[in-house]
């Protein structure tokens, strides 16, 4: 039962609503409308016990709404949420045994840090000595123990972020919800907190649901990533699965940095080999791709090429010539913005062999890495 042994806050003060460990959370056709505006069409989702799940997608994709429904801050317009087999949508937030970290931290401005962190415990009438001990331990763990007497306004952004985290940790709830917790921090601090979160994920055995619009956060933190767009779950899987075999054009474009290039093309047979041709490129497909895609011959497709699939060694794959527009120097690597026909193409490039803007350079594309998508539906072919 001592799940918190690493931090020494093991005593099971919080009576878990779900005895015997963490609940499996299942969304069964949950729906949400605000008035006539439907923000979430029926969504099914299964969050596994002890997993770090990241809901990721562009703003307005329904990821935050899903999280808030899980928290009990929004009511459902339809469907049901189950913790193991118990329906919980009628329960108040406090009865769901969860803790939440908000985007703007949502600290209580009039309480000092110790009071902020202990608010839930005080409401639950936990004995004072125990509250003090828990707060002290979590604060020490998060390096904010010297700030306990300060008010939130006296803290910097990063410190507030830690306090928000600490307030959730003190609760020892079974499920932690994070609503874009790092988005208000500057880039450097965000990277630092991301690492700390990743470390915490490994030490804490909790259900964690994390909402973000930042695919890097999603990739680095998630055991499992759920990509959402316009309320619809596009794909879910491990970071690797999403990167290597995206289900559709949206996921392919969303995951990975720099983003995947998409070029319009047509599949055709050329000298006995299935080839995808378009404005400024002609890429022969591999045998594996050819057998799989034979039925799409003579159809329009969208060709997805990751910037990392280019090579400056022309013997490495199908040749392509690209006009360099801009070279973005990032250190060891540069990102070249090039033009292929009318389309912009991003290319990852070793900075050691410099190129000039305006030049036309020869590159090779590793054709086994390219992905083809249906032109209209965007589905991976």
């Amino acid at each position: 039962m001592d799940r918190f042994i690493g931090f020494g806050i093991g005593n099971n003060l919080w009576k878990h609503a779900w005895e015997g460990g963490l609940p499996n959370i299942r969304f069964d056709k949950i729906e949400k409308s605000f008035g006539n505006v439907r923000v979430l069409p029926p969504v099914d989702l299964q969050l596994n016990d002890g997993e770090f799940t990241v809901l990721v997608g562009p703003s307005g994709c329904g990821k935050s709404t899903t999280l808030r429904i899980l928290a009990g801050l929004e009511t459902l317009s339809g469907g049901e949420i189950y913790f193991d087999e118990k329906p919980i949508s009628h329960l108040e937030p406090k009865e769901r045994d969860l803790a939440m970290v908000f985007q703007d931290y949502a600290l209580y401005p009039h309480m000092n840090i110790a009071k902020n962190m202990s608010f839930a415990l005080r409401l639950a009438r936990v004995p004072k000595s125990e509250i003090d001990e828990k707060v002290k331990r979590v604060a020490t763990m998060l390096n904010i123990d010297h700030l306990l007497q300060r008010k939130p306004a006296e803290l910097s952004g990063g410190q507030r972020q830690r306090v928000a985290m600490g307030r959730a940790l003190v609760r020892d709830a079974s499920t932690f919800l994070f609503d874009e917790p790092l988005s208000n921090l500057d880039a450097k601090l965000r990277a630092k907190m991301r690492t700390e979160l990743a470390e915490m994920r490994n030490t804490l055995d909790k259900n964690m649901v994390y909402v973000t619009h930042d695919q890097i956060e999603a990739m680095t933190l998630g055991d499992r990533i759920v990509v959402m767009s316009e309320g619809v779950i596009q794909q879910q899987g491990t970071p690797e699965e999403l990167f290597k075999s995206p289900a559709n054009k949206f996921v392919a474009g969303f995951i990975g940095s720099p983003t995947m290039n998409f070029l319009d093309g047509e599949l055709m047979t050329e000298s006995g080999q299935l080839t995808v041709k378009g404005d400024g490129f002609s890429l022969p497909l591999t045998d594996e791709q050819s057998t799989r895609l034979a039925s799409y011959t003579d159809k329009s497709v969208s060709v997805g090429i990751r910037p990392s699939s280019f090579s400056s060694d022309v013997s490495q794959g199908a040749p392509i010539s690209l006009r360099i527009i801009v070279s973005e120097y990032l250190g060891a690597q540069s990102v070249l913005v090039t033009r292929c026909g009318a389309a912009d193409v991003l290319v990852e490039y070793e900075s050691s062999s410099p190129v000039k803007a305006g030049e036309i350079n020869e590159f090779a594309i590793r054709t086994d890495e390219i992905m083809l998508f249906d032109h209209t539906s965007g589905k991976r072919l």
Partner: protein
Amino acid sequence: MQMANVNRLTPYMFLAPAVVILVIALLYPIGYMIYASFLDWNPSQRIGEAEFVGLRNYINLLGDESFRESLSVTLKFAGIVVFLEMLVGVGLALLLDRNIRGMSALRTLFILPMMIAPIVVGLMWRYMYHPTVGIFNRTLKSLGFEPVPWLSDGSWAFTSVIIADVWQWTPFIFILSLAALQSLPQSALEASRIDGATGWQQIWHIKLPLMMPVLIVTCLLRLIDAFKVLEVVLVLTNGGPGLSTEILSLRISRTASEFRELGEAAAMSNYLLIVLLLLTLAMFFYNKVSEMRTARLRAAAEGDD
């Protein structure tokens, strides 16, 4: 050089008309009043003919039973009405801070009393308090109760005046509290729900403490106003019966017009002015302190990270 001078003067030129009006309409009368409070001045005399008596008016007033009575009625009145108005106004705001159909119409309705001219409010309540044809006594009678001497009995008259004032000015506190409530950080309230706070605990631990700065200023504003109340009391009871509802501003007007003691009335006005000045200073001081506090906090926070 010339141009720079003109530029520097520009703001003062724009301020000048306002300053002129303030001097004529505010400073001159106040100065006149302060000067008059040192005179033994009958309205039939011109001010130059009045005898200068120094602080006599002020000292006389301190020993004057009716003035002290009037001051205590005013203090009691202001204390009670502001307390009740805060209680009801904040309570209503907490109740109505939600999105239900028709809430905006309801809110407008609640604010209505504040928009009626005080004289009209006084007349309205006088009719309602009328011993025989007023709606209160008629209702009481039809229910089989004894009629109540709303305005003719000393302690009832005081209560009646309070009821009318609470009716008129609760909306003021209501709208300010409602505005304060609606500008509270929503996420802090949501966080408290997740932390397990019930509705009452939210009000007690989160909403009220966060509203406090607005509530304090609102309370001071209302106190200042309550000390100056005149019209409603004038129309309802004219200070009677006896001295039971004779608030200070009423006493001042009677001293000037009935007793023809302009100097004494001026001195009385100055006492009232001092009380109000203290309240205003308290408000300024409070604002200053909270401003300095936020500045200090911000400075402290910027040092980190």
